[in-house]
């Protein structure tokens, strides 16, 4: 197992270097620069513009800029935002827990509903239940996030008044962040009602962000289960007279889980992409919105640093998925 992890880590190094190059190069391919965008309609003189670009080091040859950026990364210095002047790493660490909390909640919804729904659909193949699950999954998969989020807000928050419209917790509560996870911090604060408020704020965005992964997981589980259920060993297990729940729940499901775990791992990338829209709609202070804002403002250090940090996160998730495979499937572990 340790060898597997080390081997996977070695592969990540070139990927990491690749990400730094892409992050560095792509933003510079975009027209416009941060200083120009900051001044908006108010024209800055070309001399002054050049002077500020010089102060920021953006007039140096690209290769020199890349070198100093890479040098910074190695020492853990991700630079500071051109706009807010705050260190990129500080902002990332402040905002990332919010995205992680939302993503985990979304994934929890997707897994706890998606897998049972997929299994049920496979076991009752061709039934109305199967068709219903698959139709809902298709609708969920096709739902534009922005529209879906607003629809839920208008219905549950506006019309029914059950959930708050946006934010992470009611503004009545204010306590210093400890872990950055609102559910935990609200408990630590000891303020009455804070935890309930945090939960109620999390429900709608988690549903919105979890909808597409839920649909994907349900469909993947169904097709993997169908395949496994047709295998000889399942027939044997049934012939032995094992109870159907044991056959499906233990013998079939465990083997069907390998592609499902892959799918869940792949959703990590999706969750970050989906978080951009979800965070915007629900005013959720996470990294998705932070990254989009920085692209619009051409905030080079934030885009570069943010992309690298996100890439590291995704690489770690993939590594985790690889390790999980090993646990589920011994053949991979020894391969």
């Amino acid at each position, binding site marked *: 197992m340790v060898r597997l992890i080390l081997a996977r880590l070695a592969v990540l190094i070139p990927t990491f270097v690749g990400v730094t190059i892409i992050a560095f190069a792509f933003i510079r391919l*975009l*027209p*416009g*620069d941060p*200083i*120009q*965008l*900051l*001044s*908006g*309609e*108010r*024209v*800055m*003189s070309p001399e*002054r513009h050049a002077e*500020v670009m010089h*102060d*920021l080091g953006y007039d140096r040859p690209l290769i020199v800029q890349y070198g100093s950026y890479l040098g910074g990364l190695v020492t853990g210095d991700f630079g*500071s935002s*051109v*706009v*807010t*002047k*705050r260190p990129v790493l*500080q*902002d990332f*660490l*402040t*905002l990332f827990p919010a995205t992680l909390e939302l993503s985990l909640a979304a994934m929890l919804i997707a897994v706890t509903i998606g897998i049972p729904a997929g299994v049920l659909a496979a076991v009752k193949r061709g039934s109305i239940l199967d068709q219903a699950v698959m139709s809902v999954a298709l609708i969920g998969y096709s739902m534009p996030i922005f529209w879906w989020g*607003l629809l839920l*807000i*208008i219905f549950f*928050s*506006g019309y029914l*008044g059950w959930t*708050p*419209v*946006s*934010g*992470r917790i009611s*503004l*009545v509560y*204010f*306590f*210093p*962040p*400890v*872990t*950055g996870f609102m559910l935990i911090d609200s408990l630590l604060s000891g303020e009455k009602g804070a935890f309930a408020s945090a939960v109620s704020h999390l429900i709608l965005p988690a549903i919105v962000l979890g909808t597409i992964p839920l649909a994907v997981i349900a469909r993947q589980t169904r097709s993997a289960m169908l395949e496994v259920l047709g295998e000889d060993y399942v027939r044997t297990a049934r012939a032995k007279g094992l109870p159907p729940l044991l056959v499906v729940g233990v013998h079939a499901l465990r083997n069907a889980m390998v592609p499902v775990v892959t799918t869940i791992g792949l959703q990590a990338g999706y969750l970050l992409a989906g978080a951009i829209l979800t965070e*915007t*709609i*629900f*005013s959720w*202070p*996470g990294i998705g*919105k*932070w990254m989009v*804002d920085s692209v619009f403002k*051409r905030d080079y250090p934030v885009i570069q640093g943010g992309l690298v940090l996100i890439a590291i996160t995704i690489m770690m998730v993939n590594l985790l998925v690889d390790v999980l495979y090993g646990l589920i499937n011994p053949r991979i572990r020894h391969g």
Partner: protein
Amino acid sequence: MNKTALLIGAACLGLGLATAAEAKNLIYCSEASPEGFDPGLYTSGTTFDAAGRTVYNRLVEFKHGSTEIEPGLAASWDVSDDGTEYTFHLRPDVKFQTTDFFTPTRTFTADDVVFSFERQLKADNPWNKYVEGAAWEYSDGMGFPDLIKSVEKVDDLTVKFVLNRPEAPFLADLGMDFASILSKEYADQLKAAGTPELMNQQPLGTGPFTFVAYQPDAQIRYTAHPDYWAGKQPIDNLIFAITTDASVRAQKLKAGECHIMPYPNAADVASLKEDPNLQVLEQEGLNIAYLAYNTMQKPFDDVRVRKALNMAINKQAIVDAVFQGAATPAINPIPPTMWSYNKDIADDSYDPEAAKKLLADAGAADLSMKIWAMPVSRPYMLNARRAAELMQADFAAVGVTAEIVTYEWGEYLSRSKETDRDGAVMLGWTGDNGDPDNFLDTLLGCDAVGGNNRAQWCNQEFDDLVSKAKVTSDQAERTQLYEQAQVVFKREAPWATLDHSVQYMPMSKKVTGFHQDPLGVHRFDGVDIAE
């Protein structure tokens, strides 16, 4: 977990931020995160709302809901006869805010004024580059480094500004956010601690509200400054709930999650007005949207062509389609709410037949051109693409083929400045200080060709009038000069003036004392809320 957040949190507890049950909280659903908290470094209204108008004061202030200047930190001032020396007599016993990160040992003095300006004016000032890439855009944009010869402390409560030339809008400039007064003592403390950058993260001034905490993209919290020189505010806590999507802001307001919201979607205004718990204030904004011809290029150097195109545009249709009526067609290059607006000028009438004839006279009957449409929504033009399409159809009706072009926003701004630019550019402006000079000279003066003057229009008669008005201190005389300048502008038609948009401010009916600001900032001093 970062140290700043902990510090801020501790500061909050230290200040004894009153809890909801007993305190009056005003929640403002703001439209974006501020870029920072040093108003000298930025140009956006979001940042001014969050720092300039809450935490800080200036020597002079704009009266609530007006562009008129009134005493601020300066109780009075004298101007020398030649208009080059301004002596400000400072208000005594003005207290800076006390926070967990700073406890002032002295009241406001001339030292603070000198510090606040010199850091922006002098490249060798240790605070001139206290953050990487500090641009001081407004100070530069208003020409302060060239204009101001010196800022001198006469005594603790007297400060003298010496100018290189007389400049009539100078007092109005001093009311702008970039001219906010910071605490030199706080700056010294930060410098000594090796953390000057905190000036832009933990603001401290003499203003009506004390900064408590900022959580990026989530919220900003303030408490009322207990020793504010103009009296403590009626509310106890002011909270900015950062909510970037306009529809979501409207939903939050309806659900009672906030009390005031700026910039509603035009489509939401009707439903907000119908809500029995809400009130919607409205005011014509101090802005203009225009289509600037490139007057340096043929055939747009011919006034007949420009006039003909102006007559071909159905502005009312644009106002109806893009703003759903929440704008007025523009006649002059300054908005009607601004002093010196010339009411006697009639607009070029919408007359496609006459336009066609005029084009034929000018030998441009089969003209083809480009219309530049901004890629972003701005307060003065919500949907430039839609407006461009309407103009395209209007031009087609008089035989002019128009192609719509657009670029990425930064690129758009820089390419549109070029004097050899091909096509007419749609753009606009929101006033900075309520002075007509800030529109007429800034956008149409000869010096601005190749810069803000997108029409590349240098008309000596116009330029002489606005230049003279700039150095004249008598307002009646200035008014006359600007009125004449508008006549010249209308006659020469370097722009098609498109619209002045209306700004809506929906809020709970419980909110009292809120005044819409013609300069577009949002001020909460004097605002109360009935619980």
